[in-house]
């Protein structure tokens, strides 16, 4: 079974790839968008996790 982090990585990879192809046409633009979106997903997920931490307990 996947851990939360592994599931998050798979989600970010799949959605970033799809969005890159949906919104961009040139190969370079697609790669740049994919990488930006992927790391943004991870960063925001970790940030939201820490924001919720004080109220989680």
């Amino acid at each position, binding site marked *: 079974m996947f851990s939360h982090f592994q599931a998050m990585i798979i989600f970010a990879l799949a959605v970033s790839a799809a969005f890159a192809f949906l919104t961009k*046409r040139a190969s370079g633009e697609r790669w740049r968008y994919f990488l930006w979106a992927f790391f943004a997903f991870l960063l925001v997920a970790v940030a939201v996790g820490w924001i919720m931490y004080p109220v989680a307990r």
Partner: protein
Amino acid sequence: MSEAPETPELPKTPETDPIPEADRRESAAGREALAFVAAVAGWVVPGLGHLILRKWGRALVFFGSVAALALVGLYMRGNVFKPDTGDIFGTLGFLADAGSGVFYFVSHSLQKAGPDISRAAGDYGTRMFAAAGVLNLLCVLDAHEIAQGRKG
């Protein structure tokens, strides 16, 4: 103040009207039909709409992305909503899940152990499967717009 004289309408010739109006109408109807077929195909099998439109890279990526989300969601024993849940959230969940087309139809065969939302993994799986469906609906819209000539 006198109005400018109206210019007489010139008869349409191949130089002034290279595409006859009848052909333009037929071309527009053909594009609409292709857009409909691409959209339905893309809903039933993720990426198939783009394959029909000869957008090979997009077809592969969209199929891979939707498949990854749907299969991981099922593997994590997420819930797949049925159409007759009786509440609005269940209905919304069904609409999202059904967006994944063939993955929705075979979900019960693939998920032999059934859903398990008592654990966090099952909850994540539910969301991932719904994300697969919603993402595929975006891909369907993309195929429709490409077929209509609004996108490259």
